[in-house]
C-alpha cells in the first residue's frame, strides 16, 4: 500500500490566510476566478455540460457520508424545461463527531459559495438554498453576511459577471433536528414542513423541492468544486487515495491533545491522524476509534494497523469513511457508556415516521441503560443484536441503519466488556 504524502500537502479549503472569510481577501487570493472562468471563458468551457464532465472525472466522492460521485449525481438532473430547479446545499451537519462544514462557514465561506454557484450553473439551476443547522447561529449569521457580500459584488444575482446566467442564493436555518440532515427530510424542512424523510422513488433529481428537479450536495463537496475548476480534475484526483481522491476535512475529536479540523489528503493512516492531532491525551493508550461520525462502525485499536482514511481501506476492517469525523477514545473509556450515549442520541433524534426506527431506537437505549446500570443480563446482548437486524434496511431512510450499526458493531467488537458488565449482577447475587 502506497502511503499518501500528506506531509507536503498545502490546504486549499482552509489555507492559512488571515480574514479569508472577508470577500475582499478572498478575491485578492484568487477567489471567484473559477466562477468567472466557467461563466465567461467559452473556449475552455463549452457550456454547463463541460463543467459536469470535468467534475465527474475529478471523482469528488460526496463528503456527507454516502460517498457518491458528485458529478455523476449532477448528471441525473433532467434537461431544463424552463421551470424552477434547485440546488440544496446540506449544511445540517448533525452527525455526532462531525464539525467540518462549520470551519468552512467560519473561515472560508466564499469557496463554498463559489463552488455552489458553479454547480448551479452546471445544472442550469436558478435557485440555491443552503440549509444550516439551527445550532450554528453564529455561522448562519456569517454565511448570510458572506452571501450578501457576494450579491453586492455581483457574484450572485442577475447576469452574474456580465453573463446571461442569473441565480438566487438563500441561507436557511434548521431547527435542531438530526433527521433534517437526511436529504429528503431536509427538503421537507425547506418547504416548511415537518422533517420526515420522503419515500424514494421519486428521487430528488426528478421530484425534489416543491416537486421540482433538485440536487442535494454536502457543503464540503461543493467547496471542492472550486478547486477542481481552478486546478483541473487531474489535480484533484491525484491527491490522496485513488478511489476516494481529493482533500478531506478530518474532524478529530476525543482523547487527543489537539482536537480540531485538519485538511489533509484522503487516505491518511488513522494512526498518523491521531499523531497529527497531537497524540493521545496524557499519553494514554488508544482503545478505539469511530472513523466517520457516530453511525459508522467502531474500530478497536488492534484493527487500526495500516488502515487509512478511505472507503476501501476502512471496508477491509468493517467500517466506513462516513463524514471523516473521527472520535478517538483512550483506554479509560467505558465502551458501554459510549454505546448507551450513542443509542440515546438516535433515540432522541428518530423522527418517528417508520415503526422499526421509532420503536427500535427507544428499545435499544432502554436495554443499554439497563446494562450500563449493571442490571443487564447476557441474553440482553443477543436481544440487542436481534433488534438491530429487525431495524436494518426496513425503513424509509437510513437512520434506522445508522442507529443499529453502532450497537451491532460495538457489541461484536467489545463483547467481553459488555458481558463483564452484565455478569456483575450475577456475581453480586451469587
Amino acid at each position, binding site marked *: 500500500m502506497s502511503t499518501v504524502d500528506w506531509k507536503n500537502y498545502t490546504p486549499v479549503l482552509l489555507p492559512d490566510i488571515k480574514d479569508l472569510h472577508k470577500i475582499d481577501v478572498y478575491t485578492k487570493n484568487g477567489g471567484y476566478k473559477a466562477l468567472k472562468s466557467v461563466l465567461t471563458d467559452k473556449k475552455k468551457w463549452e457550456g454547463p455540460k463541460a463543467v459536469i464532465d470535468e467534475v465527474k472525472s475529478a471523482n469528488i466522492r460526496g463528503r456527507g457520508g454516502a460517498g457518491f460521485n458528485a458529478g455523476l449525481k449532477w448528471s441525473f438532473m433532467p434537461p431544463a424545461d424552463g421551470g424552477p430547479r434547485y440546488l440544496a446545499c446540506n449544511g445540517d451537519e448533525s452527525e455526532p463527531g462531525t464539525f467540518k462544514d462549520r470551519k468552512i462557514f467560519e473561515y472560508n465561506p466564499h469557496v463554498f459559495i463559489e463552488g455552489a454557484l458553479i454547480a448551479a450553473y452546471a445544472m442550469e439551476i436558478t435557485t440555491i438554498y443552503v440549509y444550516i443547522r439551527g445550532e450554528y447561529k453564529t455561522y448562519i449569521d456569517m454565511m448570510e453576511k458572506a452571501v450578501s457580500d457576494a450579491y453586492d459584488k455581483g457574484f450572485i444575482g442577475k447576469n452574474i459577471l456580465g453573463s446571461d446566467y442569473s441565480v438566487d442564493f438563500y441561507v436557511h436555518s434548521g431547527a435542531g433536528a438530526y433527521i433534517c440532515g437526511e436529504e429528503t427530510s431536509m427538503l421537507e424542512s425547506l418547504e416548511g414542513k415537518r422533517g420526515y424523510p420522503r*419515500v424514494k422513488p421519486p428521487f430528488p433529481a426528478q421530484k425534489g423541492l416543491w416537486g421540482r428537479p433538485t440536487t442535494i450536495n454536502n457543503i464540503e463537496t461543493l467547496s471542492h468544486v472550486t478547486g477542481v475548476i481552478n486546478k483541473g480534475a487531474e489535480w484533484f484526483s491525484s491527491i490522496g487515495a485513488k478511489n476516494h481522491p481529493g482533500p478531506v476535512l478530518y474532524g478529530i475529536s476525543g482523547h487527543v491533545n489537539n482536537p480540531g479540523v485538519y485538511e489533509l489528503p484522503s487516505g491518511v493512516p488513522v494512526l498518523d491522524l491521531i499523531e497529527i492531532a497531537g497524540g493521545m491525551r496524557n499519553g494514554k493508550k488508544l482503545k478505539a476509534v469511530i472513523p466517520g461520525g457516530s453511525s459508522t462502525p467502531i474500530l478497536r485499536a488492534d484493527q487500526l494497523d495500516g488502515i487509512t482514511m478511505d472507503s476501501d481501506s476502512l471496508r477491509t476492517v468493517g467500517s466506513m469513511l462516513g463524514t471523516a469525523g473521527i472520535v478517538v477514545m483512550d483506554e479509560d473509556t467505558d465502551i458501554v457508556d459510549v454505546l448507551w450515549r450513542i443509542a440515546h442520541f438516535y433515540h432522541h433524534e428518530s*423522527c*418517528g415516521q417508520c*415503526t422499526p426506527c421509532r420503536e427500535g431506537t427507544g428499545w435499544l437505549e432502554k436495554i443499554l441503560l439497563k446494562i450500563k446500570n449493571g442490571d443487564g443480563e447476557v441474553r440482553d446482548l443477543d436481544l440487542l443484536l436481534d433488534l438491530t437486524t429487525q431495524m436494518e434496511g426496513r425503513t*424509509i431512510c437510513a437512520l434506522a441503519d445508522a442507529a443499529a450499526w453502532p450497537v451491532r458493531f460495538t457489541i461484536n467488537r467489545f463483547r467481553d466488556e459488555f458481558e463483564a458488565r452484565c455478569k456483575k449482577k450475577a456475581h453480586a447475587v451469587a
Partner: protein
Amino acid sequence: MPEIFIDGHRYEFEGDHKVLQFIQDLGKEVPFFCYHPSMTAPANCRQCMVKAGQYMKDRETGDYEVDENGDRVIRWFPKLQTSCNLMAADGMVILTQETDELVKRAQKDNLELILINHPLDCPICDQAGECPLQIQTYKYGPEGSRFEVKKVHKPKRIQLGPRVVLDAERCINCTRCTRFTQEISKTHQLTITSRGDKNYPTTAPGREFDDPYSLNTVDICPVGALTSADFRFKARVWEMNQTPSIDITNGKGTNIDLWTRDNLILRVTPRYNADVNDHWMPDAGREAYKIFNENRISRPQQKLDGEQVLSSWNNAIATFTEQIEETDNSKIVVIASPHASVEENYALSKYTNLLGLNQPVFTPHIEEGTRDDFLLSDDVAPNANGCRLLGFTELDKASIKKEIKKAELVVILNDNLIDREVIAADDLKEKFVVVFATNNSDTSKTADLVIPITTAAEHAASYVNVDGRIQRTYRAKETKYTDRRLDLEMSEGRLDRYGTNFDNWVTEDNKVDCLPVWAFINSLAESSGLELNFSDGREIMDEIASTVDSFSGVSYAAMDEQSGIQLSIKKETSTSK
C-alpha cells in the same frame, strides 16, 4: 398484457396498480396499517413488507432469460419492499408472507416493535373487535414480547375536538388521521407533534379539531387512539349488528352502516360507495342514529278536546276513513314528503289516486349554507328527486300555504312543515290535520290524527339522492310487529351467530308501535272498500318500476348488486341546491 407473479401464481393487469391493493383485490392479504386506498401511501408503518423481484428479459428478443436449469432468472430487490407504494410492473415477482419465511419474519418483527409501546388495553378499548392491530397481531404477530423495560407514556383522554377523543399511547403513528385532514377534508387541523417514540397526532396549540368530517378519522384509525366522544364505551363491536343503510339527513345519500344492539341504533359509520361518498361521511349525519331511537311516536294519537291522546290503530283507521268520506275531494290536500321514501310516497299517492284526489304536492327541504362541495348539499331531505320522479307537484312555500288555506282536510306525510318554517301552526287551524310521522315534532303536535310510521331503520325502502341515484335501506331494528328471526334480510351479529338466545335483543321497550306507511294504507283502503295490497318495499318498487317510466329497470336486486342505480333526472334538479 403485462403480467405479475404473486406467490407463484400468474396474474395479468392493466394500468397502474399498487402491489398491496392489487393483492387485496385478488382476495389475498398482506397486513398493513398506514395504507388507505383513498389517500397517499406514506409507507411508514412498514408492515406490508413483501419480497419483490423482476424476471430478467432479454433486451433483444423480449423473452425471459433462463438459467442452466431452465428456470427464469429473477433479479431480487436488495431489500424487502413495502407493497403499499410498490407499483406493479411487467414481469414482477412478489412473495408474500404466505410463501416466504423472511417476509413472514419481517412482518412478525415489525409487529413486535409496534406493540412494545402500545398499552395493550384491548379489554377496555373501544376498537377491540374491529382493530386492525389486534387482528393482525393474532394473524401475523409474535407469540409474545421480549420487551421487559418501561413503556413510553403519553397523554391520554385528550378531547381533541367536540367529537373526537385521543389516547396518544395507543397511537401507532400511521398518520392516517393527519393525512385525512390534509388530503380529504383539507382543513389541515391535525399534525404529528414531537419526535420518535414520543410523537402523536394533535391540533395546533389552542385549536380545536372541529373539522365537519372529524369522525372519519375515528373510522380510519387502525387502533383505538382516536375514539368518538359520543360512542365511547357505549357498546362492544361484537354485540352490535351492522346493517347497510342510507343517510337520511342530507340529500347526498351518503351510504352508511347502522349499528344496532337490542333494538337501539348506537352509531352510524360510512359505507364505501365509490360513486357517492367513497369511504367518508359528514359528522352531521352521525347524529342521525338518535332519530331512530329517541322521541319516537309509538301508537296512533288523536286529538280529543284539543288534547292529543293515545289512540288505537282501529280508531285511527276509522277516523281517517271518516274524514276522507266526509270531506269534499276538492277540499283535501295531500302533502307528500321528500323526507319519506319512494315507496311510502308511492303508496300514499296510489291510495289518493284511487280516491280521485288531486296529485300529491310536496316542497323540497332546502337549508341554504349546508352545502360544502363534498358530501353535503343544501337539500337536506333524502328524497326530493324521488317525489319529482313520481310526478308530484313541486310547490314553493307560498304555494303550499295557499293550497292548505283552501283545504279542510290536510294529510301530511312525514314532513315537519311547521318545524322547518314552511307553514305556521296557525295555517292549520280549523282544519282536520292527519300527520304520518316517525318522531314527535311541532307539526305532529298540531295534528288531529297522528299515524306513527317506520323510520329508514325499520323498513326497506329507496331514496333518490340529489344526483338522481336511487339507493335503498335495510331493516336494522324491529317494530312491535316484526320479528327479525323471521326476516332473512336483517343482518346477523356475532352474538346472533354464536351467542345464546338471551345474549341479545331482549328488551321489548325499545320496540316502537308503528307501521310502514303502506301497511297502514292497506287498512285504509280496505275500510273504504278499495283494492290495495302492498306487501313490502321490494314489491312496491317492482310495481313502481313497471308503472312509472322514470323508475323502469329499478329493483332491489339491481340496487343491491350495483349499490344504487343512476336514474336520469333533469339537469336543473340535479344541481338543485
